[in-house]
C-alpha cells in the first residue's frame, strides 16, 4: 500500500508492506520495521526498534489528529492516485468561503444581513457555549452570500453558518 500522508502540513510518502506478522514501512524512502497492534478502538500500539509508542486517534468534524504520547499531530491521509485533488478548497483564497461553527453551541445573534458587504475579520454570527460568547468572523472582504444561522438554533461543530463571497 502506498499513501501520501500530510503531517502538520508537510507531505510524506509512506509505503506499507506486511512482513512476518509485522510491517515493513518505507517513509520518504527510509525503511522502518514496525510491530503494530490495535489495543482498542482508536488506540494503536507500535513497537519500533524497541521503542514502545501508544498512538491515539481523534477524528473531529473537520480534522484528523494523531497523538503520540502527549504530542498532537494534524494528519491527512490520501491515496496518491487522487493526489491531484489535494489543493481543492483548502487554502484557496478566491471564491465563496464557508463560515463554520468551531464547536457546538447556540446562535445568539446574527450581526450582518444577507447581501451586505463585510470586511475581513468582521463579526458575522455570535455563538454561545458554556456561558461564553464567540464571534465568528468573516475570513475575507466580500459580500455575505447567504446566512444559514438563525438566532436560538443549536449548531454542531462544522455546521456552516454563513457563506461569504
Amino acid at each position: 500500500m502506498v499513501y501520501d500522508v500530510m503531517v502538520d502540513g508537510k507531505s510524506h510518502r509512506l509505503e506499507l508492506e506486511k512482513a512476518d506478522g509485522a510491517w515493513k514501512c518505507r517513509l520518504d524512502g527510509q525503511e522502518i520495521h514496525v510491530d503494530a497492534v490495535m489495543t482498542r478502538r482508536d488506540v494503536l500500539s507500535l513497537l519500533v526498534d524497541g521503542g514502545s509508542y501508544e498512538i491515539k486517534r481523534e477524528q473531529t468534524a473537520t480534522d484528523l489528529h494523531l497523538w503520540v504520547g502527549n504530542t498532537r499531530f494534524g494528519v491527512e491521509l490520501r491515496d496518491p492516485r487522487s493526489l491531484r485533488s489535494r489543493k481543492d478548497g483548502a487554502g484557496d483564497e478566491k471564491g465563496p468561503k464557508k463560515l463554520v461553527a468551531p464547536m457546538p453551541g447556540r446562535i445568539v445573534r446574527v450581526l450582518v444581513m444577507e447581501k451586505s458587504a463585510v470586511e475581513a475579520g468582521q463579526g458575522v454570527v455570535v455563538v454561545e457555549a458554556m456561558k461564553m460568547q464567540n464571534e465568528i468572523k468573516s475570513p475575507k472582504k466580500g459580500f455575505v452570500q447567504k446566512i444559514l444561522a438563525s438566532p436560538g438554533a443549536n449548531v454542531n461543530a462544522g455546521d456552516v453558518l454563513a457563506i461569504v463571497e
Partner: protein
Amino acid sequence: MFKKILIANRGEIAVRIMRACREMEIATVAVYSDVDRAALHVSKADEAYLIGPAPAAESYLRMDKILKVAKRSGAEAIHPGYGFLSENAKFARACADAGVKFIGPTPESMEMMGSKTRARQEMEKAGVPLVPGASRGLQSPEEGEQVAERIGYPVMLKAAAGGGGKGMRLVHTKEDLGSALEAAQSEAERSFGDSEVYIEKAIVNPRHIEMQVLADEHGNAVWLGERECSIQRRHQKVLEESPSPIVDPDMRRRMGEVAVRVAQAAHYTNAGTVEFLVDQQKNFYFLEMNTRLQVEHPVTELITGLDLVHLQIRIASGEKLPFTQEDVKIRGHAIECRIYAEDPDNNYFPSPGKITLLLPPAGPGIRHDSGAYEGWTVPIDYDPLLAKLIGYGTDRQQAIMRLQRALYEYFVAGIKTNISLFQRILHDPDFQAGRLDTGYLDRLLTKGNHVGSPQTQGLAIAAIAAGLFSVLDPASAPSRNGSVAGTAAASSNWKQRGRSEALR
C-alpha cells in the same frame, strides 16, 4: 441519619456526593434538565426526576421544582453542591419551610457572608484581620478619596455583592478614583442588581490562601488546613494545593484559629471556607467566607484523611463533630487540577461536544472525580468543568511528579481539554519553587508555549500510524477531498459572559 438525600446539582460534584451517600447507605435522588438525561449523575442515583429545560434558570435554579421532587421522593435533606443554589439563602430558607434539611449553614450565616461589607463589619467586631479600608459602601467619590488618602494607593474598589471580578477596579491615583467608582457601581448594578461598592487597600501580587473549617450544630468548630489557590485565570481557580508552599505550622495554626473565629462570629454550621489574601510579608487578611463545599475540597481530604461530604451529612443530621482539633493529622501533599472542556491552543474557549475516547488516569496517589464518560456529549449549557484530577504525595515534589505521570496517562478525544496547561504549570520552575501569586498564571500564559525542538521521531511515528490505522481499522479511510475553509473561525473572539460564581 437521613434515609434519602436529594442532590440539587449535576456533574462531578453530584456524582461525588452520591458516592458519599452510598457509602453511608443513604438513598439518592437526582434532578436533571432535558439535556442531562444521559448525564452520569442520573444513572448513579437511585431515583432521578426531570425538572425542566436546559437553561439553569429553568431547571437547576428552580427552587419550587426541586422542592416538589424532594416532597414526591420523600428526601429528608438536600445537598446543593457548589454553584447553582448552594449559596442562596432564600433556598435554604425555603427548604426549612418545606421541612427538608438544607445541608449547609443557616440562611442567616449565608446572608451575613453574602454581603461583603456586612461580613467586613462583623469580622471587624470579632477582631479578624482585614485589608485596610472601609467596611461600608462609599456614598461619594469624596469619601473614597478620604479613605484612599488614609490607607494609601493603590486601592481596590469592590462590589459588596460581588465576585468573579465583576464590579472590581484597581485605582492607582486620586485622579482615576471618580470615574473608576462610577464604572464599578454601574457594573455592580448590572451584574448583581446592587450598586454598593466599597474600598480596600490593593494588595500587590497577593496570594490567595483559604482555610477549611467545619462546625457542628453544638458549638464545636475545627480548621482542617489551608489551600493555596493563587493559580487563577480570569478570577477562576485552575489548580489548588495543600499545604501552601509558604505556610509553616505556626502560620497554619494562626490562620486556622482566625478562620474558626470567623465561623463562630457568623454562628456558622457545616463546611465552610475562609478566604484570605496574603501579602509578600505573609500577613494574611480576611477576604470572604464561602458558605458551601468548595470545588477544591479533595486536597483537604487527602492531607487530612477525612471525608468532608460524609462530615457535612453527619453534621446536618445533628451529629457532633466526631473529633477535636488535636485529632486532625495533616500528612503529605495534595494538588488538584480542574479539567475543563476548553481549548488551550485557542485562548481557552469552551469546547463542548461528544467525548469519543476517554482514558482516565489511575494508580498510586491519584484520585479522579469525574462527571464525564466515554460516549457522553458534554452539553453546551453549563460550566465546562469535566472532572478533577487530584494527586497525593509524601511531599510536594512527589505530588507534582505523580500528577505529571497521571496527566501523561490522561487522554480525552472529541472535545478539547486543558490537560496540556497542567503539564506546563507542573513543569514550570516558578511553580516548582512555589513562587506563586494571583498573577502567576497570566504571566505563564504570556510567556507563550515553548514548543521545544521539532519532534522528528514523533512525526515519523504519526505518519506511519496514520497508514496503519487505516489498514487495521478502516474507520480512518483517506479523507474527503478538500477541507472546510471555515476553520479560520478558530481565531475568532470569545468573550466571557459572567461564568457562574460556582467555580471560584
